[in-house]
């Protein structure tokens, strides 16, 4: 797998599983009703998609198998061959194998040899129907102990070699007219009591025969200490089919190989090996197995240049870099006071390195938004289909990267917006035609970087929002008076949509539902330090625009002093800072205000908001931080301004969660903890 592909691995695995589930269901349907062409088509599509996906990702084993499946399926579709028992079985075997392969890919285990299935698929295509389950390929020489590697290696070979004693026993049983078989059994991976299955198998085989060797050793098997496969050599009078039947009668187990042991092969092997006289040399399949266990084959597979890292470790790394940033800030302070040339040089270097390091760590945490976007095409298609609408869905900028923490949170809000766009934005085809539009609507999902922000837009070319209806609705709901709404700007009007419960009423035709859950969307995005805007033209369409910060871990903040305490205000919510004198203060309806460039700015004292004991007196000159809360501005009076600084956000933990006005804490250069104010909930 190449490096740039690895990031899609999760998506690949997830989607593969979806396709496999689908494949399974459809196979079951096809089995019930072999004439069901739609199931066949669906199976074909699933196989085709899996082929495409796996070959893109470089999993050639999977691509190869699905390719051959596709061949057979296309013949089935065209009626060249008909759907009959063994074919379904083989397709099911292929499905099982695909599941194993997907599991292996997830676990980073090696590719699987599918020659057996591919051969059978080839046989079907050539009109030769063979046994319905994969069999061991007899061409491979089976005298050397090929380890069973992983549970994936379907090309199973006996993991034993027979020593002189075994051979004597085997010879003897053959003279008595009994047959010796090598049997390999697989227990379902989720089987809870493996030892019980083993017991049942042993019991059923020992009624009229004998188990003379097992791998792993019988004791391990009794205690369930094996992966999902074990091997044994059995002597009895039964034939291959009868043995299979017996074992397969036990639930959750599957016979993989039942192979008649021809003693001649082994004699030959022994003759070639003069050391055979000492049985000890060959008697320990265990050690030879241990030596050859999968490492090597896996290692050769692990030439990928990526490492999957627990996000928690990255968080730790981020924290450490945060500490470094804090101390860098402190060094800078010292440098300023010391006026020492060399020191300042070093500090400058340090600063550069720290900044680089910070960028690198942030980049490591970045993932393309594609991960989230990828699930949308299907969703939009399904939704449009259900609603009887025609929607052309376009995604742009899916390579845009965002911090992992943001990525995890952004999915649901986008689902909401897309659903709204398809459900309420895009009109029905006939309506669109009447309005002179293309009958198929367009929904675009666009992501892009802009400075330290990422913008995500959901753009539809539907009916747009009827602002007058929203105005009426707002008045009905008692959110504003008629006069107020008529004086409102379009932005102020659309703001109503984000009020909770705004359009729960069903009777407002065009707009109804447009606001369902939009308050939730807004809250979510604001909790990510983002913003959401809406832009709409009646009859032309609506655009929802989301602004998100690149990361949540380190932010720019304005440090202010209140009393002898320092607080951090995220710069994203600060509009400006200003200085006012006591004489500028005015009272309007018992609210202190100040005129700032002709606009009335309501004021509130930080001392009051932050529960300081003394908050009544006014200084002659006061510092005001002008913050934005939604559309409104507000001035917060603080004692002094310290300056702008990068801060590392730290959570206050469960015990202090949800305190209004406090977004978290940060550690300052001097080691003191400073609280980060959350303007949204502070006032």
């Amino acid at each position: 797998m190449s490096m740039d592909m690895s990031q899609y691995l999760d998506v690949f695995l997830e989607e593969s599983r979806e396709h496999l589930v689908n494949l399974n269901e459809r196979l079951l349907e096809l089995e019930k009703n072999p004439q069901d062409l739609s199931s066949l088509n669906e199976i074909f599509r699933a196989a085709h998609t899996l082929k495409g996906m796996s070959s893109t990702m470089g999993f050639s084993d999977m691509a190869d198998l699905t390719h051959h499946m596709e061949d057979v399926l296309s013949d089935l579709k065209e009626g060249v061959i008909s759907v009959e028992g063994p074919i379904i079985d083989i397709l099911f075997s292929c499905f099982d194998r695909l599941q194993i392969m997907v599991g292996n890919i997830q676990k980073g285990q090696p590719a699987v040899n599918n020659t057996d299935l591919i051969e059978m698929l080839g046989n079907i295509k050539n009109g030769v129907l063979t046994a319905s389950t994969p069999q061991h390929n007899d061409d491979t020489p089976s005298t050397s102990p090929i380890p069973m590697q992983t549970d994936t290696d379907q090309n199973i070979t006996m993991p034993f070699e027979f020593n002189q004693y075994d051979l004597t026993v085997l010879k003897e049983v053959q003279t008595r007219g009994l047959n010796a078989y090598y049997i390999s059994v697989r227990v379902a991976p989720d089987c809870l009591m493996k030892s019980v299955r083993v017991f049942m198998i042993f019991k059923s085989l020992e009624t009229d025969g004998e188990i003379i060797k097992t791998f792993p050793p019988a004791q391990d098997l009794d205690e369930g200490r094996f992966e999902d496969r074990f091997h044994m050599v059995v002597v009895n009078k039964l034939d291959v089919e009868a043995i299979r039947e017996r074992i397969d009668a036990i639930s959750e187990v599957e016979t993989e190989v039942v192979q008649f042991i021809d003693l001649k092969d082994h004699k030959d092997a022994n003759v070639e090996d003069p050391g055979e006289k000492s049985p000890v040399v060959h008697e320990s399949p265990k050690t030879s197995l241990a030596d050859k266990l999968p490492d090597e084959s896996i290692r050769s597979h692990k030439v990928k240049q990526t490492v999957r890292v627990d996000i928690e470790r990255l968080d730790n790394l981020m924290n450490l870099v945060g500490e470094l940033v804090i101390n860098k800030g402190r060094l800078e302070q010292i440098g300023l006071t010391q006026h020492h040339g060399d020191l300042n040089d070093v500090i400058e270097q340090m600063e550069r390195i720290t900044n680089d390091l910070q960028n690198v760590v942030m980049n490591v945490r970045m993932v393309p938004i594609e991960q989230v976007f990828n699930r949308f095409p299907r969703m939009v298609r399904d939704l449009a289909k259900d609603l009887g609408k025609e929607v052309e869905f376009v995604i742009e900028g899916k390579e845009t990267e965002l911090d992992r923490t943001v990525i995890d949170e952004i999915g649901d809000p986008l689902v909401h917006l897309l659903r709204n766009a398809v459900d309420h934005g895009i009109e029905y085809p006939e309506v669109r035609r009447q309005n002179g539009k293309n009958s198929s609507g367009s929904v675009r999902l666009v992501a892009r970087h802009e400075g330290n922000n990422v913008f995500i837009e959901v753009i539809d070319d539907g009916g747009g929002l009827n602002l007058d209806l929203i105005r009426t609705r707002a008045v009905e709901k008692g959110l504003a008076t008629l006069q107020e709404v008529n004086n409102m700007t379009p932005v102020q009007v659309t703001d109503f949509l984000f009020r909770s419960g705004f359009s729960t009423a069903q009777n407002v035709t065009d707009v109804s539902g447009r606001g369902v859950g939009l308050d939730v969307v807004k809250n979510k995005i604001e909790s990510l330090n983002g913003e959401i805007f809406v832009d709409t033209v009646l009859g032309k369409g609506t655009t929802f625009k989301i602004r998100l910060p690149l990361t949540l871990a380190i932010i720019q903040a304005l440090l202010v002093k209140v009393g002898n305490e320092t607080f951090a205000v995220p710069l994203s919510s600060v509009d400006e800072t200003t200085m006012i004198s006591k004489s500028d203060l005015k009272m309007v309806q018992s609210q202190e205000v100040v005129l700032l460039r002709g606009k009335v700015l309501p004021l509130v004292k930080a001392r009051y908001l932050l529960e300081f004991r003394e908050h009544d007196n006014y200084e002659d000159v006061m510092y005001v931080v002008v913050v934005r809360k939604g559309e409104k501005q507000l001035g917060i009076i603080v004692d002094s301004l310290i300056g702008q600084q990068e801060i590392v956000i730290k959570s206050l933990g469960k015990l202090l969660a949800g305190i209004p006005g406090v977004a978290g804490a940060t550690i300052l250069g001097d080691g003191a903890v400073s609280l980060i104010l959350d303007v949204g909930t502070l006032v």
Partner: protein
Amino acid sequence: MKEIQVVAFTIGSQEYGVDILSVQEIIKVLTITRVPRAGRFIEGVINLRGNVIPVFDLHKRFGVPPTEDAGEARIIVFQFEDTRAGIIVDGVSEVMRIDGDAIEDAGQVYRSVDADFVQGVGKVDGRLLILLNVKKLLGLE
């Protein structure tokens, strides 16, 4: 109840004990940053090697007047699963073993509302230690 090891400390004139297994460390009182709008019993937050940890004031919780001389005061830091928290105490005396037989059931001694975070009362050499269930005390349980 079997023998337990407790960290014994004082708040006001009363001796208390907490199970040593829940104690992460005992530190000297650091600068505590006040958290406005937090509960009355929360003294603030401290910076413990880069981690922000809330600190509770049990004087307020137990209605004991604050101690004048804070020279011996310590913060006991507890670790519960993914949560850490500290309590300020007037002094940590020792770590001791208390035999299960020497622990009285809380209900027999305490009849107040607070009884639910009192695990029991331990008797050691004529001293009485109130054994606290800190998880309950901090509202984590």
